[in-house]
């Protein structure tokens, strides 16, 4: 007798996939912190961390261990539950994004066809947007619960920044969706694989706007005003210590990886390796090549993020708002109109 007609194999398959993706994301995030320091060092003519292990490769483990060993301090005057929930929320929100990213073509294993995507939601991009805007709650709650005026101030900055740039980001996306005609990330990538060009060819301006907004959403320099040390001491995580601080810091890197993955999927063909016909090799090998290609694209984007971070200083707050509202949004609207006009003229 069966109570529920569940496809248990399907459930296990998805669970395994989720575990792999979550741990891989965390692992990559761990090494992104290392990469950040190395890139910073190389751009500034320094060697960077090189003590722990060969080439300093064990440095992120040492950093993680250090964070865990630190004393957990919860300020007396804080709202304790919110203070604890904050970093968890930030981390959850940034990890949830990876559910809709298509990591590769399907793999044939144990007589099953396994899609390398946790959930092919037909509104994938809307889901990403919903989750990304959840991320601001983690920061906001953390900043509020710290009961520290500087934390609160920086949390407010983060919230206003995220809201301002989400509009331009959404408008840039609408233009992309007008050309693709689908909200599912899987369909968008598949169209780019079968089509002639990646979406970047059709939407260069849209990509530029999206990229800048993604940088603002991740609180990366030049948009790292929530962490402006010289004005706000340390930012919204000032009262945090130990792994709670680590969660906030890792969440930032996971966000960066996820936004890189989404940009790669939407504008740069996702798992599509250019000038290579995937159908000529076995499906499993093609899937592995796809995953590798996507990872390389993600790494390149992360490098770009870091390169920008270690090149330019951060904006002033009024410059940030001017750029967001007076330049990005009109530009995104113009891009939308242009795309619409081009599509109409083609018809």
């Amino acid at each position: 007798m069966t109570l529920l007609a569940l496809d248990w194999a399907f459930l296990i398959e998805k669970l395994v996939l989720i575990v792999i993706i979550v741990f891989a994301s965390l692992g990559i995030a761990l090494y992104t912190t290392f990469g950040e320091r190395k890139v910073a060092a190389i751009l500034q003519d320094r060697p960077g961390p090189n003590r722990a292990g060969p080439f300093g490769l064990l440095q992120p483990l040492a950093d993680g261990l250090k964070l865990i060993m630190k004393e957990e301090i919860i300020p007396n005057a804080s709202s304790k539950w919110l203070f604890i929930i904050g970093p968890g929320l930030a981390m959850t929100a940034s990890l949830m994004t990876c559910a809709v990213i298509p990591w590769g073509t399907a793999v044939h294993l144990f007589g099953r066809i396994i899609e390398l995507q946790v959930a092919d939601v037909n509104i994938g991009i809307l889901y990403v947007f919903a989750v990304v805007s959840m991320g601001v709650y983690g920061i906001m709650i953390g900043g509020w619960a710290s009961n520290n005026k500087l934390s609160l101030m920086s949390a407010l900055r983060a919230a206003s920044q995220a809201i301002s740039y989400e509009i331009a980001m959404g408008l840039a996306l609408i233009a992309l969706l007008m050309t693709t005609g689908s909200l599912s990330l899987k369909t968008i990538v598949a169209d780019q694989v079968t089509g002639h060009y990646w979406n970047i060819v059709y939407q260069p301006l849209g990509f530029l706007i999206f990229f800048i907004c993604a940088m603002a959403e991740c609180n990366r320099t030049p948009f790292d005003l929530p962490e402006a040390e010289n004005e706000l001491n340390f930012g919204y995580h000032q009262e945090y210590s130990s792994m709670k601080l680590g969660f906030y810091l890792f969440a930032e890197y996971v966000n960066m990886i996820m936004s890189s993955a989404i940009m790669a999927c939407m504008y740069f063909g996702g798992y599509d390796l250019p000038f290579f016909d995937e159908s000529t090799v076995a499906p499993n090998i093609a899937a592995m090549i796809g995953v590798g290609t996507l990872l390389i694209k993600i790494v390149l984007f992360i490098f770009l993020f870091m390169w920008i971070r270690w090149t330019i200083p951060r904006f002033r707050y009024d410059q940030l708002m001017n750029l967001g509202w007076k330049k990005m949004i009109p530009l995104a609207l113009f891009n939308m109109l242009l795309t619409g006009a081009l599509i109409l003229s083609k018809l």
Partner: protein
Amino acid sequence: MQALTNKSIAVNRKPMTFLERLYLINIIKGMMITFKHMFKKQPTIRYPEQKREFSPVFRGLHVLNRDEQGRENCTACGLCAVACPAEAITMEAAERQEGEEHLYKEEKYAAKYEINMLRCIFCGLCEEACPKDAIYLSETFAPANYTRKGFIYDKNDLLIPNTLTNAPALAKAKGVEA
């Protein structure tokens, strides 16, 4: 007001042009600059493996000198302690006994000789004050230590190894090892 030098440049207060207000071009220019720095040679000296070479006039850790027969030069006259502006040097004198002629050059010697490396400012005045060529500043510096006591260097730490019996150790003390 009259300018002191002809190097001053008037600040350009022209409003930014459209391209400048876009920031993008200047950001890309900046990124090119940082990109070039990726291929530059790093000036870093990777310390414990690599050491910076000091110039011969570097004033580092003190050594107590010996003469060519391996006897201590110091006669505990105390001129170095008097010259020392940081009052880092203390010593106790003793008389040379029969049969100690191979150890000490003159009739009087320093039984105890201590330099507090935390007080020392490495000015080299002790070196200049010494009439017996007994104290010199070498080309090394005091290594880190866990306690304050560890920085009080006594005769065992300071005395240069015997030239005749221990040449490699001497080179090490001088800080001129390869």
